């Protein structure tokens, strides 16, 4: 256990100190600040365009443009970028070391290959968590500090739902937890491909290709696609939005979490299996 702790600590240091890790932090900070700036200047006009059509039916009172709504918009916007940012670092954890040759030093130490893969996988999850924490700080807390808090209008597939301000914090907690699980799948997939491939770029590109293909399958209502859709991890990556429905579809959310967890277990198992049999000839 002490040995695993030491390897994990090494992996965390390497993950955090790598220059490419800061790209993710920078992108998230920039996008959040950019959207907040845009909403600060033009938010009322954007919102009146959306709510204008509802004015004839409802009377909307209070501060609609608040931190909760901004966070909801930011999270929806970053749904495509976040997996890329995660894969950029986690897809390189093993293959990057294979390409640079440092893997030889790593594998000629006493620790087993299984421990090394697990340490790298946890380091990848840790990086994913850091990205989400940064997103939470900027998208939710900074937005609330700038725009204030209040009831949130959530527009989703079921229509428009108004979530009361005093009933929203647990939903955000759950949403970020599910987002972590979803990005954990991306991280595990990237780590698995990183174990299989010997260069840094291919795992990252392959992860994005898989996400794009699965997302396209999810977009079409074809009977042949409908069979596989429930088992694609991309279908469940956006299930955090279900927490902003009323009533909350608990069963759907639990099913999504189970599918995501199964994906993580499968990807990690393949990583361990493959890496233990891999010849390091680079």
């Amino acid at each position, binding site marked *: 256990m*002490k*040995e695993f702790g*030491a*390897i994990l*600590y*090494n992996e965390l*240091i*390497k993950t955090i*100190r*790598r*220059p490419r890790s800061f790209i993710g932090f920078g992108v998230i900070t920039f996008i959040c600040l950019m959207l907040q700036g845009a909403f600060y200047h033009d938010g009322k006009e954007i919102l009146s365009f959306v709510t204008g059509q509802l004015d004839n039916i409802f009377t909307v009172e209070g501060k609609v443009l608040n931190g909760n709504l901004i966070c909801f918009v930011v999270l929806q916007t970053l749904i495509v970028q976040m997996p890329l940012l995660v894969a950029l670092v986690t897809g390189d954890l093993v293959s990057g070391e294979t390409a*640079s*040759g*440092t893997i*030889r*030093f*790593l*594998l*000629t*130490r*006493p*620790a*087993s290959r299984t421990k090394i893969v697990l340490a790298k996988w946890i380091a990848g999850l840790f990086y994913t968590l850091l990205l989400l924490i940064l997103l939470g700080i900027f998208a939710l807390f900074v937005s609330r500090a700038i725009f204030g808090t209040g009831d949130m209008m959530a527009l989703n597939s079921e229509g428009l739902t108004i979530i009361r301000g005093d009933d929203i914090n647990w939903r955000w907690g759950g949403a970020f937890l599910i987002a972590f699980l979803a990005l954990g799948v991306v991280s595990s997939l990237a780590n698995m491909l990183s174990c299989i491939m010997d260069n840094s770029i291919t795992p990252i590109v392959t992860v994005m290709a898989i996400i794009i293909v699965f997302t396209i399958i999810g977009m079409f209502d074809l009977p042949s696609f409908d069979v596989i859709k429930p088992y694609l991890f991309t279908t469940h990556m956006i299930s955090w939005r279900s927490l902003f429905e009323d009533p909350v579809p608990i069963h759907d959310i639990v099913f999504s979490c189970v599918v995501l967890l199964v994906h993580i277990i499968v990807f990690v198992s393949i990583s361990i299996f493959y890496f233990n*049999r891999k*010849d*390091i*000839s680079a």
Partner: protein
Amino acid sequence: MSIAIQLQSVTKKFKDFTAVDQLSFIVNTGEIYGFLGPNGSGKSTSLRMMMGLIKPSDGNIFLFENALATHRSSIMRRVGCIIEKPDFYNYLSAKENIKLFVRANQLNYTAKDYDALFDLVGLRGREADKVKTYSHGMKQRLGLAQTLLHNPDLIILDEPNTGLDPQGIIDLRYLLLKLNQEQGKTILFSSHILSEVQEICNSMIVINKGKAVAQGKVADLLSLEKLHVVIEVNDEEKMKRILRESQYATFFEKNVGNEFWMNMSKSQIAPFVQLLIENNLEVCRVDYKNQLEAYFLKITQS
């Protein structure tokens, strides 16, 4: 004497290509063992198999008389190595890199220990610099620090003097001899600088196309080898006469003026020179090509 490394009919195939073919050899503890072979001979593949980076297709590898396949973890605590070339995390400093390895080996290093290690490899004062600013020679030194930091019983070095300056090569030679003679470390040493191998190794193996073509004590393998000896004297005619009248005529190859080319073993040089001096011939120069180099070329090209 116990055995540090033993390979038993080790074979490695990559699809249809056989990189290492039924390779067997033994390195006893306390030896400095040379591991030689031309490019593509299967040397690196063999070293990688000994370090558990590549799994053999067939055969067994034992280190410290334990099977590598089943005792890898305990074996690796006693082994330090540089395989191929030393690669580090370029975005970290030399000391931060070493700290990673210290932690991976679960060692407790004090500031003094770090200073001593960087002193040993001649990098004291540069340890805070990022590795990306290091030259290849400096990386070699850092690689050596990484190899030695856990005080291993067996040191495996693949081309450790590549990129080192002349002083670095000499320092490395004395360091390896010191580690071997004073601390009894076993060293497996692979290099293309054959004079270095001849200088420091007790035993050696030469492999070619994945197979062992020669192995044994360096002195035994080279004792029967004829050298290309160049002897320069002050009198061409007198030298020719001495040659005609002595048993050394059979060793004569050719002469260019006062420069005589001979084919003789190392042990025959001194008596021949003695004979020339006794016949009042002035010997201006005795020179010969590295013996191991000639031997290596002969057996790998045959």
